[in-house]
């Protein structure tokens, strides 16, 4: 099978090498986003939230999802079990007991955190996720192939998938009301409807300053931590609470961006295609040496 001449070998290898080198100069263009200093965010004060769930209703209406009439959301029996956002509800509110008084339980709104360094964006095979200038992490339906790797990657386990659909199943998650509202300078639907101003929309930096101020002014009311300030490299949604965040079902996460290690490995293996090309050359060399050895042995046998 392999009795081509030495010249053939050299000719073809040179061709391949130059082709590969030509290729990789083009392939560097990975979609990179710039984090704007003026990116927006939402501060959730869980000590203010009354668990009226109007935000759940507003979100469904804003995203054309089927919903019951608004007064059915007064039913507090849903708090008996912990719910998660899914393909039918992009945000949900859960209730937790307050250690000091039964009168005021702690209500926590859950939705996509809109990470500053999103794992879904790094993981997506076709680059269907994008981080916009205003902070929104947006999913593009025209690209998605439905592999669900974003769901594996997300540290908050947020993206939901329409498992029941045979054709064009979507990934569903909070989109920061990007297209219809925040992109045009309007408030997100949930922020707009909130009757007690438990959720505030604003520049992320300003929100952090405001949150710090609140903690300073009411040190007994809050634990001294803004969830989302540093977690997995920072998120657009920020939380204040009166109780340990882990007890409110927030995941325990480090400060390093979620995609950090995996991207480092990936770029290490593919550093400008040098390692693969080097391996190719090495194997080619070994093959050539062994081939020559064999043919010399055969000549001696003759």
């Amino acid at each position, binding site marked *: *099978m392999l009795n081509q001449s030495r010249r053939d070998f050299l000719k073809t290898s040179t061709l391949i090498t130059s082709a590969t080198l030509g290729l990789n100069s083009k392939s560097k263009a990975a979609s990179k986003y710039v984090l704007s200093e003026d990116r927006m965010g939402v501060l959730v004060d869980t000590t203010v939230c009354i668990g009226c769930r109007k935000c759940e209703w507003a979100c469904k209406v804003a995203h054309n999802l089927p919903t019951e009439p608004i007064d059915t959301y007064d039913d507090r029996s849903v708090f008996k079990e912990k719910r998660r956002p899914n393909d039918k509800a992009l945000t949900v509110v859960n209730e937790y007991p307050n250690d000091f008084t039964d009168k005021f339980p702690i209500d926590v709104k859950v939705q996509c955190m809109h990470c500053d360094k999103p794992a879904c964006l790094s*993981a997506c095979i076709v680059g269907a996720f994008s981080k916009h200038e205003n902070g929104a992490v947006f999913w593009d339906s025209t690209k998605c192939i439905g592999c669900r790797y974003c769901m594996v990657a997300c540290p908050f386990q947020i993206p939901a998938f329409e498992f029941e659909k045979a054709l064009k199943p979507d990934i569903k998650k909070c989109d920061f009301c990007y297209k219809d509202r925040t992109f045009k300078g309007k408030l997100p639907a949930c922020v707009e409807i909130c009757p007690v101003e438990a959720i505030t929309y604003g520049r992320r930096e300003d929100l952090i300053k405001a949150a710090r101020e609140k903690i300073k002014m009411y040190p007994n009311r809050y634990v001294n931590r803004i969830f989302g300030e540093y977690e997995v490299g920072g998120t657009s949604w920020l939380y204040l609470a009166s109780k340990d965040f882990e007890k409110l079902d927030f995941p325990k996460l480090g400060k390093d961006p979620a995609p950090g290690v995996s991207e480092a490995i*990936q770029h290490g293996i593919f550093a400008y295609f040098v390692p693969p090309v080097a391996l*190719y050359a090495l194997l080619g060399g070994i093959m050539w040496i062994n081939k020559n050895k064999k043919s010399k042995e055969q000549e001696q046998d003759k």
Partner: protein
Amino acid sequence: MENMKPKMMQKNFFTPTVIGLTILAINGLIFLLIRFVWGIGAVTNLDNQHPWGIWIGIDVAAGVALAAGGFTTAALGHIMHKDQYHSIIRPALLTAMLGYTFVALSVMIDLGRYYYIWHPLIMWNGSSVLFEVGMCVMIYVMVLYIEFLPIVTERFIGRVNLPGFLKKLNKPVDKFLRVLDRGLEKTMFVFIIAGVVLSCLHQSSLGTLMVIAGPKMHPLWQTPVLPLLFLLSAISVGFPMVIMESVITSKSFGLKPETNILADLSNIIAPLLGVYLAFKIGDMVIRQTFTYLTEINTSSVMFTLELLIGIIIPLRLFLSNEIKKSPTGMAIASFLVVLGVLMNRINNFLVAYNPPYAQHSYFPSIGEISVTIGFVALEILLFRFFVINFPIVSVPVYSTPQTKFAIRGGSK
């Protein structure tokens, strides 16, 4: 010295086992039909907490690893030029070709929007590990088909016999095949090296895939050296897969097992397993994750089983000389290695994955299991079909004629 030459197997396709496999395959295809009509949710136990099931964990991840025999034998036979192994290259190549074809099919059935499977070709994301795996696997499948082409040309050159009015084309097709064969012979080394490079890349990147899951993955498996562990385990499972497949083929077609070649191959397995074990244990010691083995739960039990059954016991077996005298012994030891890597991939992708808000744990549905078993059955049936219809399996040849192709019009 007797010469080994690949020949088509002279046997009937249908046996009772084949009929059993056909039933399993059809059963799988029925569930597949349901998946395509009513969606993934109708057949699988997947939910928002468990986005990936056995179609990814077994069919794709384990499938890629168990098809590693293709590149390890190519490296040994062609790149290291160990000619004595040439008789096992073709069966290993066929196993890899079928294996990867079914990996691609499994990816496709698991994709929510399978009809967009071509998107990664034009929509690139350089930071995505999955993108790299996808591209490598796609190119490698092509390389495998090209590596298989010489077997097709060898089968048909001088034997092109088209039915009816197509008869006129017999000569041009024959000529085309001869040109193709000559072209392939000159350039094949390019594809062989490319196949090994591509394999090393995606076998390791398959391990990087789960690194991004971070704390969602049990610390016994979550480690930055996952890609290295995946590569080492793939390399060490390649030859056991070849041995198992060779012994079973010999049994099935009533041939004498190639005990000597297989014993030589077995000698390479022990060091490969040893290196894999060293890295696995080393990683555990450095990250001090052995503390998790003191508590008894699914994770610690599965990790211990994987290590014991999949690496330590077969390592001991392959070090014994008694084993290497018996094809059955080698097949059993090889089976343990295969089982170990299968368990490792299931562990990495399913057992270790503990999503933070899961209400219950994932167990595959009857539909998922049926499709997985059906695909394996189909692969075995196709393997048998190819072995009967193409010169894959080498048999001893005692006559001397050294012509490469049959003479057209001559006796068969």
